[in-house]
């Protein structure tokens, strides 16, 4: 219902374009540094961990393939979504929760504004659009992190690493790598906004809602990841 009412807001005036752009800035630009940092080190550690195993088979040339597939298929979308849940989802819940307990949501309704359209729709749109963008940046920096380790510690030539990365990825990986963060973004937005708008019990209630929002978001991300992976595999095996 929350999703339906939010999207209905896109077809009615006023459309809160400025609020949506502001949220895209807060969520997208605000989360970018930690996504890049996390992506780099995840790529680097993947290269470090897998290279030793691959070396024992004489297959260290496949380091790039392992780093890229792990990142694009799983780690990139899931970890970016977890970062979004921890940073943006919690922020959304705390902000809306504080507004709820201080009667600002009621005041908004009393002044003739629908809080779903004014507050929920911009955050939902921002997360839907920014989650895939952040994931792509995280993936790219992760592959770069893997390259740094592969070329410095493992002494792999750049061309070998990059061709291995290139061979690893197909259209289904890219489709899945974009589908997953879009769904995860929606989960973070719905859980974050819903928890915030249902907050009761003063400042203690805000803390409770924020914790609940992060925990529920992360669990739903991990559970839905399984089903989305099944879906992508099923679609990729369809002739």
């Amino acid at each position, binding site marked *: 219902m929350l999703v339906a009412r939010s999207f209905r807001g896109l077809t009615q005036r*006023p459309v809160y374009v400025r609020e949506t752009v502001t949220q895209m800035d807060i969520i997208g630009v605000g989360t970018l540094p930690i996504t890049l940092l996390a992506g780099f080190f995840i790529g680097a550690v993947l290269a470090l961990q897998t290279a030793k195993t691959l070396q024992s088979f004489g297959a260290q040339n496949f380091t790039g393939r392992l780093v890229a597939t792990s990142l694009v298929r799983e780690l990139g979308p899931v970890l970016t979504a977890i970062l979004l849940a921890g940073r943006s989802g919690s922020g959304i819940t705390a902000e809306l929760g504080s507004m709820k307990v201080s*009667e*600002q949501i*009621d005041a908004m*309704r009393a002044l*003739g504004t629908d809080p779903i359209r004014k507050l929920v729709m911009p955050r939902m749109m921002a997360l839907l659009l920014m989650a895939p963008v952040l994931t792509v940046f995280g993936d790219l920096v992760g592959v770069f992190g893997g390259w740094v380790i592969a070329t410095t510690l493992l002494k792999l030539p750049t061309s070998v690493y990059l061709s291995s990365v290139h061979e690893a990825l197909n259209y289904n990986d890219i489709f899945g790598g974009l589908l997953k963060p879009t769904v995860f973004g929606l989960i973070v937005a719905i859980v974050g906004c819903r928890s915030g708008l249902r907050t009761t019990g003063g400042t203690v209630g805000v803390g409770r809602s924020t914790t609940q929002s992060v925990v529920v978001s992360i669990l739903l991300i991990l559970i839905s990841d399984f089903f989305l992976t099944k879906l992508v595999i099923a679609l990729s095996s369809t002739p």
Partner: protein
Amino acid sequence: MPEDSRNAIEFRDVVLTFGPQVILDGVSFVVRPGETKILMGGSGTGKSTTLKLVLGLLKPDSGQILVDGEDVTHYKESQMMKVRQKIGMVFQDGALFDSLSVYQNVGYRLAEQGADEEEIEETVQRTLRFVNLEQAISKMPSELSGGMRRRVGIARALVGSPKIILYDEPTAGLDPPTARTICELAMKLRDLEGVSSIFVTHRIQDATSLAREHATIDDNGELAIVKNTRPEQNASTQFIVLRSGKIIFEGDGEALWSSTDPFIQKFLE
């Protein structure tokens, strides 16, 4: 029905429960045009809830609620948006939007309606002048004192010239001079602007001021707050006392002071 003779607010046998707890139990009352209804009672007796029912922020379990002669009991949120344009609400702690300045808070309703910047600025300045807070126009809510927040809340409620204003304990926790300023604003709106209102309070000083004094313009053209001298001046302020979700008293100030009900007597002490 002519517009002037329509009741501003009417409750007909309204019942509201939260789970097993009965908040309002068959409450009926009328707020006539230009009348201030002072709603009194202990904490948790359904005073603030009554205001939220008028605004449609809550829906009753049964009974009817009429605003300006219109039955809004089963109105959807989108229908209530139009009704809310007739109503201004002053929340307990102001409920100002933290992220917006005083100017943006007061001009919020107009900005949402797509008014041009010139109109918003003119209205905000005029309204802030009414509550004597012109100097605070560019401040953020966090920079304001409790009394200033309430007055900005009143200014925000006044934009759009609503016919009805609902005050939810606007003087709670304020020092006596600031509380007096808020009451005088309510008197100005009642006596000079003809606004109908429900004034929720449990401060007997507020009730006494509103019932026994009125605002007028003196010979010098200045605003003056003076004692009532004629019975019809008393009639513009009526009282309701709630207890356990029921109305235990309804009438004017003089009837309230002379009530022999032990609960009311204790309350007035």
